[in-house]
């Protein structure tokens, strides 16, 4: 399963998903959020929800010099904190900007597709979906 952004036009920009992702890690605040919500050039134009879409053959993993990002069987990556040196290459490789940064540890924050935030999106923007939904060439 992966976290899917079902309908961005319904997003009201409440950031409840961001706070939820912190809470799943027993944190309060935004340092640890693995999902971001930004306006599309001002709130009048609505929002975009930025989160890992669980690529197959993830580009972020390919550029990691220490193999800290292990591709998951359903796509996406798991970060091994001990291996990560905080170089930020993965951030450059992720075109959609889904690798957020924890400034306190100087390490990346990447969605693990746990689905916790889905329960706190009040407007049905987020959902958990089977992997097939991602459109790209099969390996």
């Amino acid at each position, binding site marked *: 399963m992966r976290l899917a952004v079902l309908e961005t036009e319904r997003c009201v920009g409440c950031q*409840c998903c961001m706070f939820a992702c*912190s809470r799943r890690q027993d*944190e*309060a*605040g935004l*340092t640890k*959020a693995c999902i971001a919500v930004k306006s599309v050039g001002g*709130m009048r134009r609505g929002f975009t929800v930025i989160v890992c879409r669980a690529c197959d053959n993830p580009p972020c993993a390919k550029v990691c010099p220490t193999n800290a990002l292990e591709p998951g069987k359903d796509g996406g990556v798991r970060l091994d904190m001990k291996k990560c040196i905080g170089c930020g290459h993965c951030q450059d490789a992720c075109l959609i900007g889904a690798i957020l940064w924890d400034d306190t540890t100087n390490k990346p924050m990447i969605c693990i597709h746990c689905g916790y935030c889905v329960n706190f999106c009040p407007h049905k923007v987020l959902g958990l979906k089977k992997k097939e939904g991602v459109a790209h060439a099969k390996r």
Partner: protein
Amino acid sequence: MLKDDPLANILYIDLSNRTFMTKKRPELFDRYIGGAGVAIQLLHEECPTGCDPIGPENPIIFAVGPLTSLFPLASKTVAMFKSPHTGNLGESHCGGRSAVAIRMAGYGAIVLKGASDIPIYLSIHGNKVYFHDASSLWGMGSSATGRIIRENETGGGLRTIMRIGKAGENLVSYASVTTETYRHFGRLGLGAVFGSKKLKAIAISGKLSVPVADTKLYRKMYEEIYQKAVESPVMKKYHDLGTAENIIALNKFGGFPTRNLKEATFEKADAISGEAFAAGYLGRRLACSHCPVGCIHIAALREPYEDEPYYYKTSMISYDYEPIYSLGSMLGISDPEGILKLMDSVETAGMDAMSTGVVLAWATEAQEQGLISEKETMGIKFSWGDPAPYINASRLITEQPNEFYTALAKGVDYAGSIYGNRDSALAFGKNEMAGYHTGPGTHVGSLIGLRHSHLDNAGYSIDQKVLAQKQTSPEELADMLLEEERWRQILSSLVVCFFARGIYAPDIVSKLLPLLGFELKLEDINRIGTEIYREKYRFKTREGFSLDELRIPKRIFETSSPVGKFDESYIRRAIDRVKKIMEKQGAD
């Protein structure tokens, strides 16, 4: 509070010397919680008695509270300053991203002092403060200013951008500060205080963590509150139609001020109802940070250009109950497009929509009565229901090209004192009235309320829930209003949105505070509420406010309300009650 909670940090910024520093003041938060409670203490400390509200000595204080960023609907920032509109307590609340941004940048409060000699804007990113030359932004509308700063600043998705329009620059005493295009520090003239400091805007961002005492319990309590918020019918109502849903109900009840309160029902209310706006114009809904409700309603207004076919401009304009009242029914306007265009004009200028509408309604009546002519209005002929003259006049208030518009820019109380027709100059404690003529409760509430706002103590709600049901003495009314207003000091110290007051009931609040390291029993919380109320009242009286000198516009006695007519002696008795209580407390 918890030892390492960054809430204790107060950021002091000196605009004259372009310096800043942070002080840790946990004792202030321990004693007064945060928000309004802390802000009034800082105002007492920083604001010299009798200072000029548009002089450099007038400080601006922003404060958030322990629940900010931790719980849903804790979405408001409290601003305090000396009001250029009333000359005493200036307090205004705003959502958007402001509260979360301040807390996540690592502050419980921000104090701005001094004034700049050139236009500037500030950016506060975490522990860094930058001063930027804003000369190229001066004279710009509030939305354009927001767009330019958005493009120049970092922190996208995590930031607030507070800014003023031309009304603030030109010191209109009810100029507002806009955040995130659609939310405002609307009332009592914070925009003019910004303008007097040549402060065009402030961008704030950050993404900290905040400690909690017990993470398991925190998650549990969070889930409880979140569920209540998304399941509550009140919250559903605010998400569906927004505050504009109240128009039909208020009108049916007979408490919907119309044409400068010559009437309290609007025959065309259906045309400007929340339902009508939603059906014809609703284009988007938005939420403040950390608010699952999303009550902000944005209309999409498509207007053709006259010089070329198939050429359109689409504006996104936010609407709410209050601006539909003040810029709609109060001016007799029943055309939603006309109301939206007028709202847009007031928004661009950056003025309080309520005050502007009430000022224009008074001017219309004054012109009807021949107290002012087209010489004063510079050729404008006001006419109930016709938006165009009002749109032009709103621009002239911003520009103040003559004495008349300069008077309008000081509010309806002042304009009435110069040109007459004062008994229909609808202001309470110099603040223009809100959209309720529900009975004496709403008016007494605004008169005695520390901000002279309908939200101080919700007198309109007491009218509907209590006075409409049973005979109530002025003394009983005063007691109910005071009790509500004291509790609201706590809500605005936490700081939670007043729409969530049903969720943040006293027993819940007393369970939440220990999570943030506040060991307060319910009676302690109530005592603090009373103390904050008293501290604000002390500031008001220090600045010359007196309950004895409150002017009551006679119009409210002339137009029947849903609970019938009421008279001045009823209102005076209620005010006397408050006075006695405050005197007794002061002596304690």
